[in-house]
Each structure stands twice: as structure tokens, then as C-alpha cells.
């Protein structure tokens, strides 16, 4: 077994691979159902619906300004890992539809599964020193600086995002999306504990 306190390169690589793959499947499910979500990915989904541009491209572009913030506040390793995670997620969402597609999905069930998948993806990325972009970085900075739980900061951003979504989507879709966002944030709020998962 490797040392307890630090992840090896291989361990971080598999953590990032898990996070990017699970997040990509979650985004495929989300957009299959025409739902939105919170955070940077939610912003990209919303822009994608409004403009018709592909999620993978929009998500990749939106994240570019945040790398400088990430580098200043969280260091080089975090920024490189976040870039790898964001680029992998963008690439996977462009590539995946040729190999994997959902059929009929109950929207409520789909929202819960989306929430669990993307929650565990984010948790894996956080535990391996990465994130999925801008708002996640902001949440982590606020958690480390002020002890605010990253889950609550993200919820605040989501409220604004969902208000905008109401002008584009059916109210029923926004309600189902809200369930998914609650599940994501609950998974993070309950399980993102540096005092329990102690390796970095």
C-alpha cells in the first residue's frame, strides 16, 4: 500500500478519471431530459439550450477565466488537475453520444440519479485536489477561508441560475432540475469532510 497522507500520481489519475467519466454520464442524462443544474456546468447547460451551441465547447470556454483565480488561490497542482478534469469532461460529452445513449427515462428518477452521479464525481475530484471549474473553485476558497461549507455557497449560486432558467424552460422542468441540484448539494454537504477523508 502507498503512504496514507498523500495520493500518488496513479491514484489521482484514477480519481480524476472516475470524476470526469461519472460527470460526463450525468451531463448526458441531464441534457437528454432537457434539465438544468447549478454551478459552472449549469451555466454552460443553460447557455447551450439558449444558443444551440454544444455543451462541451461552452463548458470548456466558460472555465478559461477561472484558471487564473484557481492558480492564485489554490496553487499550480490544483489548477492543472482542474484543467484536466474540465477538458476531459468537455471531451467526453462530445465523444460519448456516439457510444452511449439513454432511452425513456422518468424525469424525477433521472434527476435523482443525475444528482448522485455528479455529487460523487465532484466528491472524487475534490478529494483528489481538483474541481470542475469556476464556481466550485469559489466555493472551495470560501470553505477554506471562512469555513463555509462549499455546498451552501453553490446553493446560493444555483438560486440565481434557476431564476434565469425559469425564463427559458417549462416550470415543470425547472422543478425536476431543482430536485437534481438539491441531491448534488446534499451529497457534497454531507460527505465533503477533510476530517474524515484525510489524504490529499
Amino acid at each position, binding site marked *: 500500500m502507498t503512504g*496514507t497522507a498523500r495520493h500518488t500520481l496513479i491514484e489521482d489519475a484514477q480519481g480524476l478519471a472516475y470524476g470526469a*467519466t461519472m460527470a460526463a454520464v450525468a451531463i448526458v442524462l441531464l441534457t437528454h431530459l432537457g434539465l438544468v443544474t447549478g454551478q459552472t456546468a449549469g451555466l454552460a447547460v443553460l447557455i447551450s439550450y439558449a444558443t444551440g451551441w454544444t455543451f462541451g465547447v461552452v463548458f470548456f470556454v466558460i472555465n478559461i477565466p477561472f484558471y487564473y483565480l484557481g492558480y492564485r488561490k489554490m496553487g499550480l497542482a490544483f489548477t492543472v488537475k482542474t484543467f484536466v478534469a474540465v477538458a476531459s469532461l468537455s471531451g467526453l460529452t462530445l465523444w460519448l453520444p456516439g457510444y*452511449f*445513449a439513454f*432511452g425513456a*427515462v*422518468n424525469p424525477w428518477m433521472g434527476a435523482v440519479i443525475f444528482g*448522485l452521479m455528479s455529487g*460523487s464525481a465532484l466528491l472524487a475530484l475534490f478529494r483528489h485536489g481538483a474541481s470542475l471549474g469556476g464556481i466550485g473553485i469559489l466555493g472551495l476558497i470560501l470553505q477554506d477561508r471562512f469555513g463555509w461549507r462549499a455546498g451552501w455557497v453553490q446553493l446560493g449560486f444555483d438560486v440565481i441560475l434557476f431564476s434565469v432558467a425559469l425564463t427559458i424552460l417549462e416550470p415543470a422542468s425547472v422543478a425536476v432540475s431543482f430536485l437534481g441540484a438539491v441531491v448534488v448539494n446534499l451529497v457534497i454537504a*454531507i460527505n465533503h469532510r477533510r476530517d474524515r477523508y484525510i489524504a490529499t
Partner: protein
Amino acid sequence: MSDPSHHSLIEDTQGIAFGVCMAAVGTHVLTHMGFVAGQTVGVAALLSYATGWPFPALYFAVSLPFLWLGWRRMGPRFALKTFIAVAALSLATALLPRWLEFERINPAFAAILFGALFGIAALAVVRHGGSFGGLSILWLLVQDRTGFQAGYAQLIFDALLFAVAALFLDWHVLGWSFLGAVVFNLFLALNHRRDRYIAT
């Protein structure tokens, strides 16, 4: 925040609920593709393909006898959590196909997805003090009685299981099933670390 070293009832509940949902999606992928796997889920899948009986009932029936062993070897809390996880997964695998369908899945991606989904599910349930079935307990008891390493017993059993599967299944399907089993086992081997995730 709650005590870092012990999970509360709510924390255990969400951990096991997460595991059951992810395992249900993973099992759905497995049976959709006609793949087999190792251990209890693999036995149930193989029996289901051979007899035509429904997977959920077989999985529940195969797991039940081992709960008593689990109680004796690991205590009543472990046995109760395992019973809840097994019963909930049986129910979830029976219901999920009504609410979530796949249109197409590339077999290589299906194998990786199954391994990742079942890996994260097993990790969550084990970290919250339960399990998804009995066979691993049997190998621990064999180790107690005879000194024969549980890891080897598990490996030999899975090798036999795949050998039997070779009589029923196309070798392509067998190969992809093997890839899924490798991803699952690598995921658990790398991430199941009691020295890193310290809460019980």
C-alpha cells in the same frame, strides 16, 4: 459538524442509499448487456441467464443464507446494514428498468461504466459498515477456520464463475465482462483504504 470518527444514522442512511442507487444503475447496465461479474451479483446474473428467472429475486435468494454468517463474523449492525442494502438493491433492480432505459451502449464503455458504478457503490456501502452480499463473508470465515487467504479464495471463486459463464456466453461478452470485473476490482483495491477514510 458531526463527530469525525463516527457516522450518524442519517449519514449511514444516505451512504447506503447512494450505494444502492449506483449499484442498481450498474446492475441495470450489466443485465442490459448480458454481462456477468464476480461474487454474489455475478452468481445471480449467471443463474438468471441460465434459468430465465428474474435477477432481483435470484440476487436476494443467493444473498440471504450469508446474512447469518455475516451476523456471526461481523456482528448484528453489519448484518442489518447488509440486509437493508441487499433488500433495497433487489427492489431497485426490479423497479429501475421501468423508469430508466438505455437506447445503446458500446460494450467497452458499458464494462467501464459497470465497474465504476459498482465500485463506487461497494466503496460507499463498505465505508458505511455494510456490504452487498455474502460470499466475501464466507471467504473471511474460511480464512478464520483454515488460514486460507480470503483474497485468493475470492479470486479462485471468480475464476470458476467465469469458467462456468464460458459455457453459456459468447466469448466477446465474456471478455467485456472480464474488463468490467477488472475495473471494479482495481477501483476497490486503489480506493478502499481505512487509513484514509477514517470514519466508521
